[in-house]
């Protein structure tokens, strides 16, 4: 079977369309981030408390809110899971003492004689929140740097590493945009997903770059844009099949993997899609423009 036969699409010639499309996505991301006042950081980074409670019978959302505010817990973020009779109560706070809120919440339900079971408690003190934020930022930056250095060494020029990383930042940023539009929280798991996405996206790009490098030595006389086009077309079938198999797995994880890895799967599901797109439509045009710019200057 063959999904894609021999193709001869002029990706480089149509680069302004794809680049404009990407700029549009980036602008949408920026607007969404401005409207939402930055990314929606979870308690892992802001500090705060999360309590997941399973009830015998899940009270209505409004009822829960009333019960909690009567007991002195004001404006908690509530997320109910009717399928498993559970609710997640989350409070973002920088207070050191917020650990005691768990006990307070339990007391409220005990007093009301509601049958319940605490399934999960997460308390992140402000110091840990800050520590985790710093670590997250540092590891993202270092992994980008590591990739640039490795690719630069392998390809003996920084053009490839930097172009690959630009495409990768593009993917991670736009994925954050989607999370922001959907108002999903950036949790530790989402950061893990974004780092994995970085790895996947660069992997995808490198395969095309490798083919370009090979064709550059095989077909010295051809113009650059033609070589780039040939290379992308030659690897197109592989690019699409690989992302298809990965997306298959991610789709199932997203649909059936449960609430804990839901956002993780969502970030990767969308991210790999964008990653595949950028490998084909963004990474090589950047290389093209870069080399063109450099030869013009000479």
């Amino acid at each position: 079977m063959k999904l894609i036969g021999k193709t001869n699409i002029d990706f480089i010639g149509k680069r302004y369309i794809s680049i404009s499309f990407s700029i549009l996505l980036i602008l949408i991301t920026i607007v969404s981030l401005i409207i939402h006042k930055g990314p929606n950081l979870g308690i892992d980074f802001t500090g705060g408390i999360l309590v997941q409670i399973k009830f015998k019978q899940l009270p209505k959302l409004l009822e829960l809110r009333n019960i909690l505010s009567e007991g002195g817990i004001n404006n908690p973020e509530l997320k109910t899971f009717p399928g498993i009779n559970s609710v997640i109560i989350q409070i973002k706070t920088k207070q050191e003492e917020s650990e005691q809120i768990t006990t307070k919440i339990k007391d409220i339900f005990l007093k009301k004689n509601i049958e319940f079971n605490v399934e999960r408690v997460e308390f992140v003190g402000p110091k840990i929140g800050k520590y985790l934020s710093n670590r997250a930022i540092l590891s993202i930056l270092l992994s980008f740097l590591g990739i640039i250095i490795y690719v630069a060494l392998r390809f003996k020029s920084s053009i490839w590493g930097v172009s690959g990383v630009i495409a990768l930042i593009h993917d991670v940023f736009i994925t954050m945009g989607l999370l922001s539009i959907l108002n999903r929280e950036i949790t530790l798991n989402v950061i893990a997903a974004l780092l994995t996405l970085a790895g996947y996206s660069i992997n995808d790009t490198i395969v095309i770059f490798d083919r370009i490098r090979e064709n550059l030595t095989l077909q010295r006389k051809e113009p650059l844009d033609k070589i780039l086009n040939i290379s992308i077309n030659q690897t197109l079938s592989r690019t699409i099949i690989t992302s298809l198999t990965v997306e298959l797995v991610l789709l199932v994880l997203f649909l059936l993997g449960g609430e804990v890895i839901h956002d993780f799967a969502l970030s990767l599901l969308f991210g790999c899609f964008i990653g595949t797109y950028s490998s084909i439509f963004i990474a090589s045009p950047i290389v093209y423009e870069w080399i063109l710019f450099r030869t013009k200057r000479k």
Partner: protein
Amino acid sequence: MYMTRLQIKGLVIIVVLALSLYFIYPTIKWYLMSDIERANAEKMRDKILNKIINLGLDLKGGIHLVLELDDSKISSETDLTDALDRVIEIIRNRVDQFGVTEPIIVRQGEKWIVVELPGIKNPETAKNLIGKTALLEFKLLGPSEKLSSINEKIRQLGLNITEARNNPEILALVPTGYVLLPGKNEESLYLVKSSPEITGAYLVNARTRLGGQFGLPYVSLDFNKEGAKIFATVTGANIDKNLAIVLDDVVQSAPVIRSRIPDGKAIIEGNFTEEEAKFLATILRAGSLPAPVKIIEERSIGPTLGEDSIQKGTISSILGLLLVIIFMIIYYNISGVIANIALILNFIILLASLALFRFTLTLPGIAGIALTLGMAIDANVLILERLRDELELGKTPRVALDLGYSRALTTIIDSNLTTLIAAVFLFQFGTGPIKGFAVTLTLGILISMFTAIFVTKTIYEFMFQENLIRKVKL
């Protein structure tokens, strides 16, 4: 008899497979055991426990805590590192006495301690057990007429116990060298000397006893020789006075000293339930922390949620992989089947490595297995697409096969290594669950280099040699 290269390759694959199955076997056995057998094995600390795949707290249930040592309360001559080591040792003592299997207690950074207790049913008790300073002090009560006037003032001002202890007017009435401490349940105040007569540092034992006042449980204490001497002097010099027994700045009781106590034995009464008395005896035995600790991070997961996660994680991962396997067969026919053999082998070796190196499997880790196997297919896709190209150029199948593999090799290495770089930083960054993900991702990628390249090529070569195929069908 000499072996051909192909036979050696085949042997390598069979040995790796056999070893992998050997390492996975204990895990399979473990999950076939009944709950009772498992509980028994845990109690006996059976060797099988060191051979099964270790599940993370998010799957097994349990509590993860990060504690911070309050270094402002350490006496100036003590070194921070020493104090931290001592805290870790004491917490380990307490946890051991509490009977937790496989606890993890390690320092992190300058003054943090990570405590992980798997399978804890009651996180509140565990938190109390770990977080209590358990500083036991015996302090003489101050003059009772002073306390009466303080209580009078409190009544006038209409304060509660906590407010009173922070009220400047009240504090002005406290004579120098004395402090106001609350009693249990915040119901009354005690005026006691600031400096203790003796502390828990001299304890050799603490036990729960039944049949104190009104038949309530109490805790009996034994001081060491030196402590007994001090205790004898203190009690001898203060007959008919009250000696308050203070635990972490809360007065447990303040009995009257009837006579000199020469043998270093004391008791703590205080309306305890049996549970409370046992708890108190446990932390006193383990010793007091050199400085208070504060919980700055807590993540606890109940066992039912963990089971739910295992179920959902496993089912979705297996289903995802099945879809990939079916897709590969439809798309690449016989070559797809060969790629799938490599994929299943990758899965088996991955599980074996988890068991062998005692890595922890977490929920993101399970997702990571599915994801890496989805990604591992890429190596075969790269090879097969190359193979197609070569065949289209008119090469014979055998030549096209060799060319396909060698041309795809650099690409596979380059693309996998860049993914590995991201995985390594993920590992560095990760807390428990994410580390589990980084582990399966890294292992999966590394193993795929073996299975997708070496194993599949060997299978092809074997098939060519045995004339099972003449043409590579794609």
